[in-house]
């Protein structure tokens, strides 16, 4: 189980998050919605260690996730995909997927020089895994293209593929459907269902309310850094405060 407790972040005088707590169970998708600037991405950043919180803590299966250290959060099993995909644009799609794999002896000089056989073996294993992941996200045909040449939707799938190489327990996905064509959105939805079936914890920030309703087991609504509603997608859609602050008054 992923737990974030009492997370607060202020940027100067602006309170981005004010004591937000959440819980997400294994094999579930938690939706995180709210107007722009409500603190959704900041919350994902805190959980992933990209942002140091002023207050609060994150635990995964009872173990504390070190704050403000993204590399340690990733090693704990937390994977973060960004709204604007972070990729190495001047490497190929295939190579981008390779870098998602942890435990690469070839990244150490001593291993490179003294144990080249081990490095080669691990490279072969990683390459096989990368091909499998690329097939899974439907990008196998783009493997040798530069990552920077992919469409926005394909780049989002690629950043998900990079995360999957590390077998994360938690996937923090920031607007995976924004700017993505309907065919790729359908692919993403199918993929997220598969990942939920694999007992992973998924936290999904998304403005596409159909996707949220379709996928999420539970939804949290943030506004001005505070939780204003929490519940099933249907309950959230019927909540008067949510209607006022985010979805808009019915006509």
């Amino acid at each position, binding site marked *: 189980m992923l737990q974030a407790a009492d997370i607060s972040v202020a940027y100067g005088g602006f309170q981005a998050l004010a004591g937000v707590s959440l819980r997400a169970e294994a094999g579930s998708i938690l939706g995180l919605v709210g107007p722009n600037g409500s603190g959704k991405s900041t919350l994902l950043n805190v959980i992933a260690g990209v942002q140091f919180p002023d207050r609060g803590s994150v635990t995964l299966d009872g173990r504390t996730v070190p704050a403000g250290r993204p590399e340690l959060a990733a090693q704990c099993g937390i994977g973060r995909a960004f709204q604007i995909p972070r990729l190495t644009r*001047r490497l190929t799609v295939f*190579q981008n997927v390779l870098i998602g794999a*942890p435990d690469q002896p*070839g990244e150490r000089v001593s291993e490179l020089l003294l144990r080249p056989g081990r490095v080669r073996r691990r490279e072969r294993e990683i390459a096989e895994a990368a091909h499998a992941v690329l097939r899974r996200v439907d990008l196998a045909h783009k493997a040798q293209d530069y990552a920077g040449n992919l469409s926005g939707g394909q780049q989002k799938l690629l950043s998900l593929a990079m995360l999957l190489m590390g077998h994360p327990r938690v996937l923090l996905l920031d607007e995976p459907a924004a700017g993505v064509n309907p065919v790729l959105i359908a692919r993403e939805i199918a993929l997220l269902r598969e990942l939920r079936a694999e007992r992973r914890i998924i936290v999904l920030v998304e403005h596409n309310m159909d996707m949220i309703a379709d996928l999420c087991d539970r939804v949290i609504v943030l506004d001005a850094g505070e939780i204003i509603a929490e519940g099933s997608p249907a309950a959230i859609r019927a909540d008067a405060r949510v209607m006022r602050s985010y979805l808009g008054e019915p006509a």
Partner: protein
Amino acid sequence: MIAIWSVLGISLHLQFGLTGLVNFGQVLPFAIGAYGAGFAAVHGAPGWSGWVIGGVMAPLLGLVVILPASRLTQDYWALVTLGAGELFRLAMLNIPGIAGGVEGVSVARINASGTAMLAALALLVATVLFARRIGHSPLGRMLRVLREDEVLAATLGRDPVRFQRVVTAISWAMAGLAGTLYAHVIGYISPSAFTVAETFLIWIAVLLGGPASILGVVLGTTIIQLTALSTRFVAQWSQLPFEFVANLRLGLFGLVLVLVFLLRPEGLVPERRERVDAASR
């Protein structure tokens, strides 16, 4: 000389071309290596101790220099390394006890020009092979990730600072050894040989040839060094004062750099895709 400066260029290729670290003090490890030879000469230490200083002290000092810079942005990296290089030069200028101060010091010179050339070529070949091994490896792949996006590397579980330290240690060792060899080839060292201008000469060569390509770095260094060495002949041929031609040369380098940025931002030899792809086979 071209081989020695190419080693320096390759040390910058690893830091900047592959990893994106802006080091404006690359003359510092070079100077430490040279002063290792000078220190050994002044204090009667055996010749090999100079090489140890170049190959071991330079990377160790590099790690100390980048200690405050590790968590800083690239602009500060440039300033910290620039400052460290100047600090060392001024220290050597004002502390004669280490290696002669402002007057410099004579170092055992490799007299046979053939031997000097062979030694320089051997160092260059070893450096090229080592840099290629890194560039074509998973380590090289991760350095290219850091060049574009440190946060990405961190969110994939890598500590960017660890990689920055590794690259600094390797490239400063290369530059340190090049400095020791330089001292033995020239036979004399003084602080005036290790000014900021030297760092920028390496930068111009690297940017001209192509920072992400070893071949490009060697090509750029060759062009810059041949142009620099030809100043004397041009001055004689044109009957113009030497100083004037030397300054004209610096202006020419500046012009070349502007043209490279405008016409070929990746340098004469851009990073080849198949070279990078070799890492994934």
